[in-house]
């Protein structure tokens, strides 16, 4: 039997202890703060990761999978980190060091500290299922909360997109739509309801979003997107655009503006039982004009109003767009850049085709020939 003091002494004798100066010389070291959550939120060493001592064994291998990594552990005064260092040594980590004097000495000696942003208890509860996912966590949730996403259209595609983006905690949602909610919309446009028939779609969508998540700021543009108003709308600093337009002139207009401004566009389109999704990330992948340099003749371009659409299809395609938007906003995963996803609801089949940036693209190519807005209606009516 040994007392705490004896155990601590024996533990410290068996591990490496470093002071701040020595620790700073450990190139590429991973710094881990093993204190409790409330201590961490009162300030920590910049760049450190946080794994409370109680979770260290279970989380270390997902955080630092390479056992040859150099690790610096710290706590408040250097005791918990000493026990933690012994544990990591037992787990097979070769180069683990405990910071002598811990955070207290670090701070006393004028070491730099940062105050982490923290979610309010309400937000922690609301987004708890995101916080549990390692790829998102608190940092990813902050990125979503800081994001500004512009939706072109609050119709079939915009409905699921606006609701799921709002639910995910996207901080600011812009919605461009000039339309009024009518009864034919309710077969698929789930952001609207009988209560909002006859009201502008942007207002109806705003109401639905605020009922779901009042933290989201909604900016409405009750107008049809044109060459005249697009710059004013995009001047509001949108991080990305979710395009759910229903016509070619708007698609090409959104494309050109987004390439010039470097704003990624999450593209979705639907007709009857089929849908297409992709992400146009300016200069990193193809743009809409690389995929379709020319619109089809009008007789081959019926809208859903003319040809019909299965009600759930925009739900599926709009949700796939939202998935891409959330990934881009959180900075995770592999976005659908350079890949066009095709969905067939009748056979329940997904297909994917590769799309490439064209060096001769008139907008994003090596020698662009279109550098200002054109007459998009005329271009699409040829």
């Amino acid at each position: 039997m040994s007392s705490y003091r004896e155990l601590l002494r024996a533990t410290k004798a068996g591990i490496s202890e470093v002071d701040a100066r020595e620790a700073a010389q450990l190139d590429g070291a991973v710094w881990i703060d093993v204190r409790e959550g409330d201590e961490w939120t009162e300030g920590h060493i910049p760049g450190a990761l946080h794994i409370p001592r109680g979770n260290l064994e279970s989380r270390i291998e997902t955080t630092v999978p390479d056992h040859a990594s150099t690790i610096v552990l710290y706590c408040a005064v250097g005791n918990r980190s000493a026990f933690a260092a012994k544990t990591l040594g037992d787990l097979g980590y070769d180069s683990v060091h405990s910071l002598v004097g811990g955070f207290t000495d670090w701070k006393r000696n004028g070491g730099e500290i940062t105050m982490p942003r923290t979610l309010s208890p309400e937000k922690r509860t609301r987004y708890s299922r995101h916080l549990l996912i390692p790829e998102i966590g608190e940092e990813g949730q902050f990125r979503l909360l800081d994001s500004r996403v512009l939706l072109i259209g609050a119709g079939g595609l915009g409905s699921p997109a606006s609701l799921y983006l709002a639910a995910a905690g996207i901080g600011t949602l812009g919605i461009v739509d000039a339309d009024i909610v009518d009864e034919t919309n309710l077969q698929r446009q789930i952001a609207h309801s009988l209560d909002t028939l006859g009201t502008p779609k942007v207002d109806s969508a705003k109401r639905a979003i605020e009922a779901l998540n009042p933290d989201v700021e909604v900016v409405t543009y009750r107008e049809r997107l044109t060459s005249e108003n697009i710059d004013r709308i995009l001047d509001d600093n949108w991080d990305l655009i979710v395009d759910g337009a229903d016509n070619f002139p708007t698609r090409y207009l959104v494309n050109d503006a987004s390439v010039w401004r470097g704003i990624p566009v999450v593209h979705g389109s639907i007709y009857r039982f089929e849908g297409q999704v992709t992400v146009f990330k300016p200069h990193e992948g193809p743009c809409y004009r690389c995929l379709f340099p020319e619109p089809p003749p009008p007789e081959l371009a019926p809208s859903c109003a003319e040809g019909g659409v299965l009600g759930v299809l925009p739900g599926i395609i709009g949700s796939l767009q939202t998935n891409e938007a959330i990934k881009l906003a959180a900075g995770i995963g592999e976005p659908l850049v350079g890949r066009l996803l095709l969905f067939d609801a009748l056979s329940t089949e997904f297909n994917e085709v590769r799309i490439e940036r064209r060096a001769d693209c008139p907008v994003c190519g090596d020698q662009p020939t279109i550098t200002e807005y054109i007459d998009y209606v005329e271009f699409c009516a040829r």
Partner: protein
Amino acid sequence: MSIVRVPPVLRAEAGGAREVQASGTTVRELLEDLSDRLPALGSRVYGEGTIQPFVNVYVDGEDVRTRDGLDTPVRDSSTIILLPAMAGGSSW
């Protein structure tokens, strides 16, 4: 024979079929065979020796324009996707 997937906006030209068959060892041969069998569909996609500019043709997921164009080889097991742009969209 290869499988050719017909996009919804061109199905009227294929008698409503979602898929049709056509044969050829290159995209050119295949589109010419398709034009012989289904002239209405063929002429929408292919005319005067070129693929219509508003239609993309994919062989096994690759855009033939990024490969050898009409000379892109086609195998019996290949799936060909004809893809014009879809207007969109939710009405708004």
